[in-house]
């Protein structure tokens, strides 16, 4: 006879309570905007209809996509190349990707503003320039996530032999990277991408310092917190839903195709 695992369930239930109590509280709060006794979705409609929400959310969304592209194009070929040809450089690449953890975002953004607000690179004056700098800053934040994901993916396939097989069939580097390596890193790249997405959507420090006023989603949420508590709660719930979905998608993809997956599981 197997005993009912009381201890196990207790811990899990406690954990769920711990995580979900604030969440449920927030959810309930966001529904009470009209009166204390009835629920309404007004906070959500207010937020979703508001021009500032749409603008900042849109900005961060596009910035997140741009960051993902830059980050993947920067990290994946480098990690692949280091894996294949320059294994001695591996600790250095790893070190750079961890720099983001060592150097706080506030320090980084401050340095970036200092360097790029004077010649030879005066990028702070134009909108194009500040957007560019923000993407570069976001990319720095995403490096550890993207690198870890790609690295795990590369370890899961026999990179060297696959590369050589493709080479002997006449494939050049572009074909090898985009047709052989990347497709086999699909899951790894996607999980890195979703993490990057979550990080960028919630990012406050970098965009707040580089961009004038409230342009991105992070500062918008902070500002909302101070001015409109019900809507702020609604936004929190929305963000949480987004993150949850992202992670769910990663898990699903990881499960999808046995034998050809790589990355988080």
């Amino acid at each position: 006879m197997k005993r009912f695992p009381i201890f196990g369930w207790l811990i899990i239930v406690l954990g769920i309570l711990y995580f979900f109590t604030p969440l449920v509280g927030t959810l309930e709060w966001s529904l009470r905007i009209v009166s204390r006794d009835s629920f309404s979705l007004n906070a959500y409609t207010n937020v979703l209809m508001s021009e500032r929400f749409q603008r900042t959310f849109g900005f961060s969304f596009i910035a997140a996509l741009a960051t993902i592209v830059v980050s993947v194009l920067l990290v994946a070929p480098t990690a692949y190349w280091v894996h294949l040809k320059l294994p001695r450089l591996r600790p250095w690449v790893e070190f750079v990707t961890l720099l983001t953890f060592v150097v706080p975002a506030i320090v980084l953004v401050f340095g970036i503003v200092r360097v790029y607000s004077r010649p030879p690179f005066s990028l702070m004056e134009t909108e194009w320039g500040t957007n560019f700098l923000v993407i570069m800053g976001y990319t720095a934040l995403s490096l550890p996530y993207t690198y870890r994901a790609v690295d795990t993916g590369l370890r899961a396939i026999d990179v060297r032999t696959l590369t050589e097989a493709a080479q002997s069939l006449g494939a050049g580097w572009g074909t090898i990277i985009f047709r052989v390596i990347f497709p086999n890193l699909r899951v790894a790249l996607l999980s890195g991408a979703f993490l990057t997405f979550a990080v960028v959507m919630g990012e406050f420090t970098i965009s707040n310092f580089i961009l004038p006023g409230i342009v991105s989603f992070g500062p918008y949420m902070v500002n909302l917190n101070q001015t409109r508590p019900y809507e702020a709660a609604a936004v929190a719930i929305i963000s949480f839903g987004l993150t949850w979905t992202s992670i769910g998608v990663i898990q699903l993809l990881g499960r999808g195709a046995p034998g050809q997956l790589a990355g988080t599981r």
Partner: protein
Amino acid sequence: MASTTGTARRFSWEWIGVVPFFLYALLFLIIPSSFLVIGSFQNAQGGFTLDNFVGLFDETVRNSYTLSLQISLFTALAGGVFGFLMAYAAIAGGLPRFVRSFLLTFSGVASNFSGVPLASAYISTLGRQGMATILIGRQIRGEVLQNPNLGYAVAVGMVVIMSVSIIIYSWLQRKTEGWLR
């Protein structure tokens, strides 16, 4: 008989492949961060000084460091203990499989940083919205003491603390990797 020497043949252009990555790191990570280090050794007139580091032991600065460290430590410990208990319950506690996959999904973000959750949690709390971060921000803008260079020193102090944490983290992770092998 054509016989080229080994060295002449062996020169390789392989390092070209990592140039973009390190160029990026230089332009957007290393040069910007080094501004801090330089600034922390300068006084308001731009001359060399160590005063800023002496200033780190001022009461306000020290307090905010201590507070930051305390919060981080507490968070990390609580998270580590609780996380461990949950993981243990899910794996060894005889719970159905779906609980496990649910937990995995839930902690998906963290699981990307497999290894020592304690150190990991410690580091990210320290780096994000700790008191020190707020202090640095205000210092750099000259809001508190009208002395941005002190702000730099505060930041450099944080970088040092973070580096130590990261080194311990890497070391612990290498060790656990060794155990698991």
